[in-house]
């Protein structure tokens, strides 16, 4: 196996203006050490062989590229394929990256890993590889998310990780990330910070992209076998920090004939509500967690909390490479509201018997708008980044709440 060589970032970790290393000086030597180690091991045959071995035997790769025949027929347009990252061990694409970083951690001789998590998918994934590799593991999670995602907290603890509940700020992913960085600043000599998305200071966005690009590389091969061509007409993926999207976009982004690359951000209650996570759609250039990117902040530069029905998408920033893609028009970024995502969730469940993660349901919902406008000989690939088991309780709660308020509305109308 070999990891791809993309033209970006530059030697300073920049994608145009985006990226970089905006971190306390204490971390700079560690980031330099990590960059050197990563550049070395990404070309080391022994490392790549081990990575490939675990991807195949432990994660279950390659994941299928499934032709969604019922969905295609229902929507009446382009042929729709689902890249089944939901079938990975631990239930999402996250493991592609955590496995790679954990192997790197071992090669660098570090015994302890730190991670942050929102909904818990990245935390579970890190706890999993830490158990596999025999590494000590501490996961930071916002107190609000610890409450909402009790089952994933229990999973992480079963896997031997220590979960630390973060009480500061908005008590969600943003604050868990601050806390993980603080731990890393304190224990930088013996700890490895496994970042869960294509965010953070250089080399993290590049490293996570490279480990996730296995998704897009497989799509090319699989599509060639099924459709006789490696490049689809459109690729759709949800975007929070953006790791599943970059994984499926990157192998296409730098080729000459590019498909439409469409990143779907969480529009929450809508653009005008301020309850959304439209970092590209409504954000400006700013710095959070060590990198310059599109970011939601007020006129004083204070970071604004993001909202989405999906805990995996409510992050106020987006990876620097996505920011670059958006600025240069390499990819398009659109928004899907909470309501539309729930419809996408139900649509895939009923037509294909697959419960998608609420994150991925945003991509499904956008495909449902796009596919009917396309021709039947055209092909859409949707990255189904994770499975919906973790979201079933939340979906039930939201749907019941809505049914309740609708019933109430009917009663009051009746009275009037």
């Amino acid at each position, binding site marked *: 196996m070999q990891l791809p060589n993309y033209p970006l970032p530059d030697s300073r970790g920049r994608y145009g203006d985006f990226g970089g290393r905006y*971190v306390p*000086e*204490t971390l700079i030597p560690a980031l330099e050490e990590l960059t050197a180690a990563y550049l070395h091991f990404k070309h080391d045959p022994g490392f790549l062989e081990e990575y490939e071995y675990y991807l195949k035997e432990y994660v279950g790769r390659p994941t299928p590229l499934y032709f969604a025949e019922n969905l295609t027929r229902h929507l009446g347009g382009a042929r729709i394929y689902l890249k089944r990252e939901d079938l990975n061990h631990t239930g999402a694409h996250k493991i592609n990256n955590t496995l790679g970083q954990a192997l790197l951690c071992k090669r660098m001789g570090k015994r302890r890993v730190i991670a942050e998590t929102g909904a818990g998918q990245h935390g579970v994934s890190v706890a999993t590889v830490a158990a596999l590799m025999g590494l000590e593991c501490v996961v930071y999670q916002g107190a609000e998310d610890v409450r909402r995602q009790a089952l994933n907290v229990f999973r992480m603890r079963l896997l031997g990780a220590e979960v630390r509940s973060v009480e500061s700020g908005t008590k969600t992913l943003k*604050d868990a990330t601050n806390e993980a960085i603080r731990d890393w600043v304190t224990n930088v000599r013996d700890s490895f910070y496994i970042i869960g998305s294509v965010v953070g200071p250089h080399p993290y966005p590049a490293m996570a992209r490279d480990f996730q690009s296995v998704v897009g590389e497989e799509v090319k091969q699989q599509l060639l076998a099924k459709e006789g061509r490696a490049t689809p007409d459109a690729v759709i993926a949800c975007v929070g920090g953006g790791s599943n999207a970059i994984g499926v976009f990157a192998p296409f982004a730098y080729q000459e004939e590019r498909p439409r690359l469409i990143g779907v951000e969480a529009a929450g209650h809508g653009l005008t509500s301020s309850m959304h996570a439209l970092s590209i759609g409504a954000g400006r250039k700013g710095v959070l967690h060590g990198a310059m990117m599109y970011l939601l902040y*007020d*006129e*004083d530069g204070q970071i604004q909390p993001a909202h989405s029905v999906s805990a995996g998408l409510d992050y106020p920033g987006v990876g620097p490479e996505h920011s670059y893609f958006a600025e240069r028009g390499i990819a398009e970024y659109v928004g899907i509201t909470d309501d539309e995502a729930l419809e996408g969730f139900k649509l895939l469940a009923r037509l294909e018997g697959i419960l998608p993660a609420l994150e991925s349901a945003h991509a499904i919902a956008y495909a449902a708008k796009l596919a009917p406008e396309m021709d039947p000989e055209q092909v859409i690939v949707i990255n189904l980044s994770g499975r919906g088991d973790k979201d079933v309780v939340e979906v039930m709660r939201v749907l019941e709440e809505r049914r309740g308020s609708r019933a109430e509305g009917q009663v009051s109308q009746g009275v009037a």
Partner: protein
Amino acid sequence: MTTREAFERAAAEGRAALIPYVMAGYPDATGALELLRRVLPFADVLEIGLPYSDPLGDGPVIQRASEQALRQGTRQKDVLEFVRQVRTLTDKPLFVMTYINPVIAAGPERFFEAFRSAGATGLILPDLPPDEDLALVEKAHAAGLETTFLLAPTSTDARIRTVAPFCTGFVYTVSVTGVTGARDRLPEGLPELVQRIKQHTDAPVAIGFGISSRSTAAQAARAADGAVIASALIRAHEEGRAVEPVLEEVRLGLFRQASV
């Protein structure tokens, strides 16, 4: 008074310079000014915090203060006003400490110009290594502001060589690998770190992170030209204690004759 003069005056008195930290808007607008008046007699140089939503270089005490200041509705314009008020009280050097995003939000030129004309002497940006954005550092200098950057126990000689020349105010040396916060004692090896730094700059070197008592101050004074005290002051206020006794203890620790 220039920053250099402030350090020299402390040295002439046989001690390391004392740099207390007060956050604008904490505990509220008037409370911050009251705290400032109390610490002012002890200060050689002042550090004024601009509260930020995601202060990832700071420990829990300063983060709590930031959250409270923001809850009180503290805006950038209020911090500017605070700096103006402080400037009417003293001619001591005054460094504004904040993170890079509030600077970007305002627009760097506008931010630098506004704080310079309000009376700030310099800037401390803990999440901006100077080589990350040299143009921005030049803009700060062009606006007439001094810049102070951080160096840490993990800093290699190459990093020290890169960062030190940009410290036109003073060098802010982080005593530990970690975030801000009071500690019982400082780690060994500080004098060696400061010696390594002094090979690459003639700017004064101050030690921050963990200064809270006479003994930690004495450790800092044995190694460097100054000491920053921040979390210990906010903690004293949180606990309803006066800040003067804390400052008095630290000041005593900064006198050098005991260690000579």
